[in-house]
């Protein structure tokens, strides 16, 4: 009798506790996302792991002499330990070394360039600051291949690479650049470094801007020479941001695909991502192993990053009252530095656009005279009869282009709505249950897609979707895009929520405002610009994404980026350049319209 009673009490206690747990929206959100993210990230990972032990159709089955679907160690043996014809060296170790070399160099370039500009803008009286800070994020907003393509079209010549035609440098100025300058390690690292320099600029600049000026003034009063202040005070305080930047740029460079394809493949300079793409067509199992290696690197980097940011030297940046820190007077160096910087930015951000425009106008490659130019590739008709290549109309009159643009925009908006909203919800849940195991899990899982190389992510989902009949076409693209860009959105969501004190919501809770209304009427309006940034970044990224979608885009409906690739592959250079310009203009337009209208900006979600 007694026992059943205590049993009953226990049961009702548990029931009460469960009820209390489920009555908090944060818990339900976290639980839902835990399940969804497990399915969407861990399941693909698991299936990836399975693939590395499975024999696939085609060449692979023949080479392994095993039936399709059988279990095998063959892929591992091939990738890691085959000395015949230097197979493992060529397919794995050399690309790995190349990847590491490129990634390290590009990280260093990004930090040096981005960090230096951040310092100049926040700490000195540099001229043209407004222009510099406005244009500096361009390279990140534009597709990463933009600079690569520009580099190639500008410097290529008939002596090197594919030896097809002369670029502007050779045909206009008569200068033939050496191969190492145009293709391979140097330009890949440089272009990636420049593309990710805005990461460094935003992360390091953010710290510098919020850094308490008193910290430097205290050193000044204690008679510290200027250089020693920078070396002993400023740099150490920025160090965690620099390390974070290094790791993030490293991870991003490692999984970059389009840049090494444009600048590496013509001279057979391979990195892991390009090797993986090649293998994907022939030896899938080996390709998946390389994906696995890349993911392992990513996870290691994430863990390192977390270790770096959690140290006992806590870098709380309480802002002092002296907002107007005395800026370093660059004196006579000001104008030269400013002008050099502006020239570099013009070269990186504006000249490529002009080049694409030019390239889309000329009829015969390499001839940049006015007589060789036409607007036909944009608005011409009956082109197929006059030219021996391309579509019959210019791209602006081509319904296929408009359809692809519509499809791209639709996809971008869908992904941004799903990823952005999920990001806010994840942010809410994680911030509310800060420090709990559940929150940590969801937070890590939501960042995980960031570590998956886009191409591999697409490949895995392709493999996964073949088993699920309803998952294809637009639905598949939207799902892949949303999951892949969730990290950006959840980052800005968590940050925005952490800034909000709990009391703000509690004040509404106490007067009985329901949860959805608290979100919509209280929380969202307060952190509007941060949240909208969480929508903007997936949208912009989606618009310019190629490698993520290239494997899963349905043949009936192309998006702009895959269309660009098709045109490039067919050698329709002018159409390709025109579409490229179209993509860039649309992306920039979307970015700046949203930025002007809502104050959302890409800076707020970058990098993590």
């Amino acid at each position, binding site marked *: 009798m007694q026992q059943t009673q205590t049993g009953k009490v226990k049961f009702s206690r548990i029931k009460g506790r469960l009820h209390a747990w489920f009555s908090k929206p944060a818990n339900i959100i976290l639980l839902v996302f835990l399940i969804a993210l497990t399915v969407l990230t861990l399941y693909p990972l698991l299936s990836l792991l399975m693939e590395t032990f499975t024999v696939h159709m085609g060449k692979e089955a023949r080479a392994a002499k095993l039936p399709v679907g059988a279990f095998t160690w063959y892929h591992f043996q091939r990738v890691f330990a085959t000395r015949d014809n230097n197979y493992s060296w060529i397919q794995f170790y050399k690309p790995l070394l190349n990847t590491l070399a490129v990634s390290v160099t590009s990280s260093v370039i990004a930090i040096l360039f981005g960090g230096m500009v951040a310092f100049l803008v926040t700490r000195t009286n540099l001229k043209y600051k407004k222009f510099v800070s406005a244009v500096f994020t361009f390279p990140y907003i534009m597709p990463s291949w933009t600079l690569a393509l520009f580099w190639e079209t500008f410097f290529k010549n008939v002596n090197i690479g594919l030896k097809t035609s002369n670029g502007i440098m050779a045909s206009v100025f008569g200068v033939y650049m050496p191969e190492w300058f145009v293709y391979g390690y140097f330009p890949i690292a440089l272009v990636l470094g420049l593309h990710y320099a805005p990461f460094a600029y935003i992360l390091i600049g953010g710290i510098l801007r919020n850094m308490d000026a008193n910290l430097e*003034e205290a050193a000044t009063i*204690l008679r510290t020479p200027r250089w020693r202040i920078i070396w002993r005070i400023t740099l*150490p305080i920025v160090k965690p941001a620099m390390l974070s930047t290094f790791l993030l740029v490293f991870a991003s460079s490692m999984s970059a695909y389009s840049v090494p394809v444009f600048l590496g493949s013509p001279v057979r300079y391979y990195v892991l991502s390009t090797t993986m793409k090649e293998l994907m067509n022939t030896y899938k199992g080996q390709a998946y192993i390389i994906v696995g290696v890349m993911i392992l690197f990513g996870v290691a980097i994430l863990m390192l990053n977390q270790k770096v940011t959690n140290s006992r030297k*806590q*870098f*709380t940046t309480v802002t002092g*009252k002296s907002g107007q820190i005395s800026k370093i007077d660059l004196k006579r160096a000001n104008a030269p530095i400013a002008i050099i910087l502006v020239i570099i930015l013009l070269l990186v951000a504006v000249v490529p656009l002009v080049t694409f425009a030019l390239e889309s106008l000329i009829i015969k490659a390499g001839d940049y005279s006015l007589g060789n130019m036409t607007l036909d590739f944009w608005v011409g008709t009956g082109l197929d009869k006059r030219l021996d290549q391309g579509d019959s109309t210019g791209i602006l009159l081509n319904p296929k282009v408009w359809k692809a643009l519509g499809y791209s925009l639709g996809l971008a908006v869908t992904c941004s709505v799903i990823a952005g909203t999920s990001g806010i919800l994840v942010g809410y849940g994680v911030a509310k249950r800060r420090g709990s195991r559940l929150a940590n899990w969801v937070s890590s899982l939501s960042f995980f897609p960031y570590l998956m190389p886009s191409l591999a992510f697409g490949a895995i989902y392709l493999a996964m979707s073949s088993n699920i009949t309803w998952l294809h076409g637009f639905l598949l693209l939207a799902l892949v895009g949303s999951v892949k860009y969730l990290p950006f959105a959840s980052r800005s969501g968590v940050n925005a929520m952490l800034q909000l004190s709990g009391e703000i919501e509690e004040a509404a809770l106490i007067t009985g405002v329901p949860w959805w209304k608290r979100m919509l009427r209280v929380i969202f309006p307060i952190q509007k610009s941060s949240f909208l940034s969480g929508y903007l970044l997936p949208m912009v990224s989606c618009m310019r994404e190629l490698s993520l979608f290239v494997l899963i885009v349905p043949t009936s409906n192309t998006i702009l980026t895959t269309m660009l690739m098709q045109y490039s592959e067919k050698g329709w250079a002018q159409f390709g350049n025109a579409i490229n310009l179209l993509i860039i203009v649309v992306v920039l337009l979307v970015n700046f319209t949203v930025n002007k209208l809502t104050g959302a900006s890409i800076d707020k979600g970058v990098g993590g």
Partner: protein
Amino acid sequence: MPEIILKNVSKRFGKFVAVDDLNLNIESNSFITLLGPSGCGKTTTLRMIAGLETPTEGTISIDGNVVFDADRGINLAPNKRDVGFLFQNYALWPHMTVYQNIAFGLENLKWDKKRIADRVHELLEMLRIGEFEKRYPAELSGGQQQRVAIARTLAPGPKVLFMDEPLSNLDAKLRMEMRTELKRLHRDTDSTFVYVTHDQLEAMTLSTRVCIMEGGLLQQYAPPLEMYNNPANLFVADFMGNPTINFIDGTAQMEGSKATITLGNIQAEFTADKPISLTGKDVVLGVRPEHIHISDAGKREAVVYSTLPTGMETTVKLDAEGIMLTAVVFGDVDYPIDSHVRFDFSKTAVLFDKATGKNVARGALRIK
């Protein structure tokens, strides 16, 4: 001995005038407070003397050396002015231990290691933070951080020490304690202290002279008690003292240094300590709360509006026929709210000209 002289110093941020034509003579070994509400220009003044801010006009000299002269284009860098600066938020370097924070300035002076270690330990001992030597600032409480900041500032033995609201981030009890120690420190270090605060109590209790500012303009520069008893204008009278001074509007009828003042229904006689000259008839009478005396022998009656007893004293708000008055009664007394009491002015009051807001005279007040 360092003496600081400011002549015609102004600071403008665009059109906004932060400090307007300031003249100040800070004697050596004094403890000066720059006092005023936020945005009055006190911090800007301090930062200009330290060299962290560049004045728009004027000259500043420290210890006989001109450190800034707008006309002659002299502007000595802060690290060449031989001063110490204590920041409101301490500005401890988060990536250095307590020891490293304190030693940093000494390294700049190229002291040898042994001497640095000795000096740091001396300071750690003096400020009773020896046990935290190897900790990082994030691992210290506010009060401990404050001590480290003081140690760091004192380490090179500056002859002039600037402090920018150094106690405002501490809790009330700790603040009390640090005040005592700062005063002691001032004596022990034998240097000139310039201290910025918005807390009049801090200014009263700590300084040898107070410089009170408002809207970038110097209002009065005097020893604290003189400022309390004989404020230059309505602003100073109102700012100094807690509970605040009573201002009673009235009209005055002059007879030499005597005046008959009508305060609502109350007629009072004011005997000034010097001849009075007024621009008009309208005056404001300033009466400190401790000079309103509540007793059965009081000449007038008032209703108790509210009381705030602290044990040591009780602040009583009175409604004297429409005039609200604040009185302080010492000791543990209390009055029921809405009860009737009798009160009187106990002599001292300050007469202000209503039109100019300026102090006209100090004198004795007697209800007729």
